[in-house]
């Protein structure tokens, strides 16, 4: 058997000696080991003779000269020109598919290469903790500040570097008389080697805590051509001296918007870290580590698990904080946690679009193969003549392959052009900055390789099957592809339309979910609310004057001073207590603090009790609950109850309708509203709907700016901020609909091409039927029937698949839409209608031709 295989490929002149050698080897093996081993080795030796020198040359191909290739090329071109429509459909469909696959690959590459610039990419981790409250596990990326020292002291052998880092947020920096807002961080010195901070000027700070590093771009922005080293900067009421300039962090990295790096020692002074009465309590800092050699994330995580727990008082230890490490390769792609387990994140979209890309490309290839196969039946005569004249079979094979490869390469060129033109549009949609990697030879090699593979696949049917037919039969016109040839084509059509239907259903569902989120009652009126951040003591002191002025001149209806904008929360507390509270219940209440007019400005709805009022001096010890919080008190009438926050008692005076301040799909959190007459962060204003917005804004700026005392004045529209929370879903929805559209386009091109051949093939039949009295609608049904059946089958397959995919996608949303049955029906109907329209174009054209012209003998 193995010898036969060997004879099949081995050069004839070598056969005798080789088989002799192998026989000897086989006997030798028999002496040493078992028969089975000897046989196995024989096969292995045969296999290893598959070497260029030993393989026999294919018969017939040796005498092909360049002239032959030229002739193939010319024949291929002639064929394309002769069947313009067919060639156009083929090339356009394939090019669209390849372009989609290109763009998606670029996008995936972009997402996957995030943070990869860091040289210790594989070894860096961030400390996270799992907190258990009421049996539910929450994952936080913040840790208390003494954790860094704890890790260094007790677990130092596991880590090469350990750095505590403050949050990155914008600070106001004063340089001379200019003020800038720049984001940056404070960190411990291990941060520099950890994240490859490279200095272009100056030195890393050693002793002086007020030394600060600026990024190159910031240094140029601040000081221009002047030497930045030694310059003074005021920030957060402290003065800093520039000690060095570092190269800006890469755009696609965690620290892309870090424009200055201050020192932890200075941060400790500003934030009074040493004076905290319970430093292990507040989780407000980030910690980054690099593993020591030979240590992996899992084992290090297990060892440091209790690093925080063992330093906590019994009361806090209830939450069982478990420290673990989140590895850098997961930061961007797998950043979602639920129940203490990593559940994914962006990686899901990477997979989703990856699959979409593969399918679209697959569909384009399927089409291409389908059309080539369908058309090849018409070329049976050509093959017959070529054979009769004396073509070798191998020459015919080469000819068909070169034809399909030529088509593929024309499509590839077109696809690259399309990608080049579409990339800016896609960048805008996906909020990216991707470019075609012209310079990467690997890309070109893989593109050309893929082209050849697609060409070979698509050309395989005509090349291998048609070249084998007998010329006599073909020339007589008796050649017909059997049932066997049309079955795979039908399967391909079903797959194609199945994918299209899944995409239509998916796109509709994403769209519905977004609409569902948009229509969610927010509990207040978000339109016409404007927030001014970072207000000063002077604004606070003139609160009443500003309010009266703005209301009197009609710019606003009401305003309030508050701790957080209405579209976010800035604080929460678990030290809330009341009579009859279950001692095991541990719950974080979101806490809002504001002036008297908060409710009136937001226009919230009081469902029980009353709003804060200046008529009740006792309101400074009052609290308002949302409905969700009221549920926790588990009492029929919560108004009048007493709530203790950090043991200070507050009287509940009212309950308001739940306000959605977090993500539009997130559950409502139990919230408490307290009165606070101190200086707070924001001024939120309700614009007067009767007045033009621009005029109101001008009035507001005029009223507030003088009191900002040089701090930057800005404002945000709350409705715009709320809309931004839909960004992610919105992007997915837009992209998904673009891809679905393209997928449908490709499928239609395919079915368009196919139906044109079917119609052409049956021209005579249609003529006969017409003569015998068939009318247009009967013919239409006759010809569309086949396709309609296929599309219906594909929809039956697609609906359950789509339902299953969408259900698992929707499960990640707390506030989600129920999938209505009609979207499946609509998608099926839509696919059908599109098919009918596509098919009808040909059917009607063919059916209207006078039978006299089709039935005449050629």
């Amino acid at each position: 058997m193995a010898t036969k295989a060997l004879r099949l490929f081995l050069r004839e002149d070598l056969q005798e000696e080789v088989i002799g050698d192998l026989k000897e080897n086989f006997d030798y093996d028999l002496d040493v080991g078992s028969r089975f081993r000897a046989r196995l080795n024989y096969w292995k030796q045969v296999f290893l003779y598959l070497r260029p020198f030993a393989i026999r040359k294919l018969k017939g191909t040796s005498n092909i000269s360049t002239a032959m290739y030229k002739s193939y090329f010319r024949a291929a071109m002639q064929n394309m020109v002769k069947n313009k429509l067919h060639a156009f459909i083929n090339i356009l469909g394939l090019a669209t598919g390849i372009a989609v696959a290109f763009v998606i690959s670029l996008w995936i590459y972009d997402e996957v290469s995030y943070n990869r610039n860091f040289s210790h990419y594989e070894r860096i981790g961030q400390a996270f903790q799992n907190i258990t409250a009421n049996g539910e596990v929450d994952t936080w990326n913040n840790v208390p500040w003494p954790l860094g020292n704890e890790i260094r002291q007790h677990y130092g052998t596991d880590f090469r570097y350990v750095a505590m880092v403050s949050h990155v947020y914008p600070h106001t920096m004063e340089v001379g008389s200019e003020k800038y807002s720049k984001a940056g961080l404070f960190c411990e010195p291990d941060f520099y080697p950890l994240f490859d901070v490279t200095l272009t000027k100056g030195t890393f700070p050693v002793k002086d805590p007020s030394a600060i590093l600026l990024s190159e771009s910031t240094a140029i922005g601040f000081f221009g051509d002047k030497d930045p080293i030694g310059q003074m900067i005021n920030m957060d009421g402290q003065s800093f001296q520039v000690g060095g300039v570092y190269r800006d962090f890469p755009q696609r990295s965690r620290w892309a918007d870090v424009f200055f790096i201050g020192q932890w020692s200075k941060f400790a002074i500003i934030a009074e870290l040493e004076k905290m009465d319970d430093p292990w309590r507040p989780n407000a800092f980030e910690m980054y580590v690099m593993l020591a050699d030979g240590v992996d994330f899992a084992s290090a995580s297990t060892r440091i698990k209790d690093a925080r727990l063992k330093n906590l008082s019994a009361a806090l230890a209830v939450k069982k904080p478990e420290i673990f490490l989140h590895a850098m390769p997961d930061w961007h792609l797998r950043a979602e946690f639920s129940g203490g387990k990593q559940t994914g994140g962006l990686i899901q979209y990477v997979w989703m679009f990856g699959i979409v890309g593969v399918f679209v490309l697959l569909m384009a290839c399927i089409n291409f193969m389908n059309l080539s196969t369908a058309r090849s039946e018409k070329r049976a005569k050509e093959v017959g003549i070529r054979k009769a004249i004396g073509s070798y079979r191998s020459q015919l094979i080469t000819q068909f392959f070169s034809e399909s490869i030529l088509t593929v390469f024309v499509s590839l060129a077109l696809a690259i052009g399309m990608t080049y033109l579409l990339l800016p549009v896609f960048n805008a949609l996906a909020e990216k900055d991707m470019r075609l990697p012209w310079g990467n030879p690997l890309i070109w090699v893989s593109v050309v390789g893929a082209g050849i593979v697609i060409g070979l696949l698509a050309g395989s049917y005509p090349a291998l099957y048609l070249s084998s037919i007998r010329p006599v039969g073909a020339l007589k016109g008796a050649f017909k592809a059997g049932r066997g040839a049309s079955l795979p084509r039908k399967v391909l059509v079903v797959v194609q339309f199945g994918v299209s239907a899944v995409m239509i259903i998916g796109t509709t569902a994403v769209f519905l979910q977004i609409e569902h989120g948009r229509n969610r009652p927010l509990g207040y009126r978000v339109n016409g609310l404007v927030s001014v951040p970072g207000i000063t003591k002077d604004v606070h002191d003139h609160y009443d004057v500003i309010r009266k002025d703005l209301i009197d001149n009609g710019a606003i209806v009401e305003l309030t001073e508050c701790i957080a904008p209405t579209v976010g929360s800035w604080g929460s507390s678990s030290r809330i207590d009341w009579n009859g509270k279950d001692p095991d219940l541990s719950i974080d209440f979101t806490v809002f603090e504001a002036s008297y007019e908060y409710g009136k400005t937001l226009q919230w709805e009081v469902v029980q009790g009353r709003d804060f009022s200046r008529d009740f001096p006792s309101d400074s010890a009052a609290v308002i609950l949302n409905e969700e919080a009221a549920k926790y008190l588990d009492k029929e009438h919560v108004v009048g109850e007493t709530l203790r926050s950090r043991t200070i008692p507050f009287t509940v005076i009212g309950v308001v309708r739940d306000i959605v301040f977090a993500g539009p799909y997130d559950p409502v959190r139990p919230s408490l509203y307290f009165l606070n007459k101190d200086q707070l962060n924001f001024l939120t204003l309700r614009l007067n709907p009767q007045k033009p917005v621009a005029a109101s804004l001008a009035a507001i700026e005029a009223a507030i700016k003088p009191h900002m005392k040089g701090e930057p004045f800005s404002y945000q529209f709350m409705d715009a901020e709320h809309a931004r929370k839909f960004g992610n879903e919105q992007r997915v929805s837009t992209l998904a609909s673009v891809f679905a559209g393209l997928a449908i386009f490709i499928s239609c091109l395919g079915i368009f091409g196919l139906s044109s051949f079917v119609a052409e093939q049956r021209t005579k039949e249609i003529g006969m039927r017409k003569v015998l009295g068939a009318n247009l609608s009967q013919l239409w049904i006759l010809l569309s029937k086949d396709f309609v059946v296929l599309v219906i089958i594909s929809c039956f397959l697609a609906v359950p698949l789509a339902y299953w995919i969408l259900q698992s996608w929707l499960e990640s949303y707390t506030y989600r839409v129920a999938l209505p049955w009609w979207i499946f029906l609509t998608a099926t109907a839509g696919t059908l209608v599109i098919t009918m329209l596509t098919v009808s174009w040909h059917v009607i054209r063919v059916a209207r031709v006078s039978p006299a012209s089709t039935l005449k003998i050629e």
Partner: protein
Amino acid sequence: MIETRLGDFEETVMLIVGILGDAEAYAFRIAKAFEQRTGRSISIGAVHSTLDRLETKGFVRSSLKNATSERGDRKKRIFVITALGKRVLKESMEFKVQLWKEYPAFAGKLGLTE
């Protein structure tokens, strides 16, 4: 560096051809001898392709010789080193010896100094 036109594996195979002599130097024996001397396993095909290459380069020549019953009365191709092959082998050896001499850590310790 001098162009020896002789790869490391090729050189080893040629030397084994020389060692085995006129009667024994055919692909199976060479492969077995290689396995015995180096402890590495090698396929007969790999040896054969190397011999084929050496023959094109003119370093060895070959002829089909006496069939034996143990190989089912099939002839074997016996390889012999040509004069050119011998010269190339010698050049390669000398070149390496020269290199060893110039390598300071070993110079004089291997008995290579004249």
